[in-house]
């Protein structure tokens, strides 16, 4: 109960909406970028495909703080993308989380489409479907595991704290999310509040 007493209810709702908004947007962007690339890696045969697959799988373990720092330097007013003013904004946070989720959705999506490609690929090609079209068909055939890939990407973004803390700045009422609130409340010694903040939502 002390959560409601201590943290204004409207503030808490804002924090939850922001967390969902940023993480869902990031997941959507990551799926938009990651799934076609994962599919292409399954469907196209080219030199270096094996290496690229290994690289994509390796990026699954991309540390959020490294991504956060890299984006900080890019988005800083004195950085190459400074003119867009995205540092310390929700937009910057979406970019950071999308960067983290893209390899996850790409790699798991690639796995999901590999099986159906080996099974139906020849038949689809014989029917005259172009490879981009085949990727779209594979996405439909492998829908459940592709959905799992997207959910795994969402899991990464909603639970992530390192990157958004650096890029977002944890500004009250603007870039403060569920995870960064817990970091802040813990540092204030409000251990019970930071715990119940998670437990009750």
């Amino acid at each position, binding site marked *: 109960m002390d959560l409601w007493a201590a943290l204004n209810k409207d503030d808490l709702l804002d924090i939850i909406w922001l967390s969902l908004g940023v993480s869902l*947007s990031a997941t959507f962007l990551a799926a938009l970028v990651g799934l076609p690339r994962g599919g292409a890696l399954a469907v196209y045969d080219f030199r270096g495909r094996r290496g690229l697959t290994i690289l994509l799988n390796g990026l699954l373990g991309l540390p959020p703080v490294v991504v956060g720092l890299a984006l900080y330097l890019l988005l800083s007013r004195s950085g190459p993308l400074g003119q867009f*003013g995205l540092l310390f904004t929700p937009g910057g946070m979406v970019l950071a989380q999308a960067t983290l989720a893209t390899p996850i959705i790409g790699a798991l999506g690639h796995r999901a489409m590999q099986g159906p490609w080996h099974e139906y690929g020849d038949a689809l090609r014989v029917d005259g479907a172009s490879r981009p079209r085949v990727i779209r068909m594979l996405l439909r055939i492998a829908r459940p595991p592709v959905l799992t890939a997207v959910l795994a990407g969402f899991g990464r973004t909603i639970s992530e704290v390192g990157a958004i803390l650096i890029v977002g700045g944890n500004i009250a009422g603007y870039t403060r999310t569920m995870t960064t609130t817990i970091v802040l409340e813990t540092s204030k010694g409000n251990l019970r509040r930071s715990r119940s903040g998670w437990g009750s939502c």
Partner: protein
Amino acid sequence: MKVLALAAALLFGGILGDHACAQSMQHSIVLASTTSVENSGLLARILPLFTKKTGIEVRVIAQGTGQALATAARGDADLVLVHDPEAEDRFMAEGHGGKRRQIAWNDFIIVGPNTDPAHVTGGHDAVAALTAIAAARAPFVSRGDNSGTDALEKRLWRKTGTDPAANGGGAWYRDIGGGMGAALNAASAMAAYTLSDRGTWLSFNNKGPLVIVIEGAPALLNRYDVILLDPAKHPAAKQTAARELAEWLSSPEGQAAIGAYTIAGEQLFRPSAIEPQ
């Protein structure tokens, strides 16, 4: 996928719309400040008064003083509110700062376990206390994050003539690399001594066995300065709005708001812009 896109569009449309609007009106500024000011709750209390009066929204990034000055030097903040005179002097000397003004002060304290293994309680000499703590090899938590508090701690150790990090210091001298709250949490859990600003200490809710052991030492004065950025070097900074905030903080109204902030009846910050200390 479609559901996801719709949900993302709905939620994020609101956020971005909000942001674009705030930007076009130039009515938000970024204040890089220290964890001690933010964690004490002072800014959350007084900034809404400023926003109500001027319509300028202030976005606070709470960092250590060193990091806050670095953020401003990169041009990512519009003004800073910090408390490390030496680091501020360097910032000014490098030409990043415009106008600098002291707005408030309070003091640092040394807190430690109530069992007091180094027998320093009640003293008024911070350097002597640290010397005793080092001699007793009693656990001591250091911020180690280049913040204003950390810089003062390092200066005090230099005055003791010992380097706690050297000769196996890790056993009792624990550099945690975190903010003031994190250091107090660590000290509370390890029954260790640490240097804290009074504001964060008063508002900290996990004190455990910790009590104040040293206070009122002249070396423990803690002054807070607000610094505007140099307009020539940082043209992107929102100069007009930032100056309004700096002026409000040192105005009678802002100073009264700072002085009125109390926790459990104790005043956390002493306003000092009108009568500099």
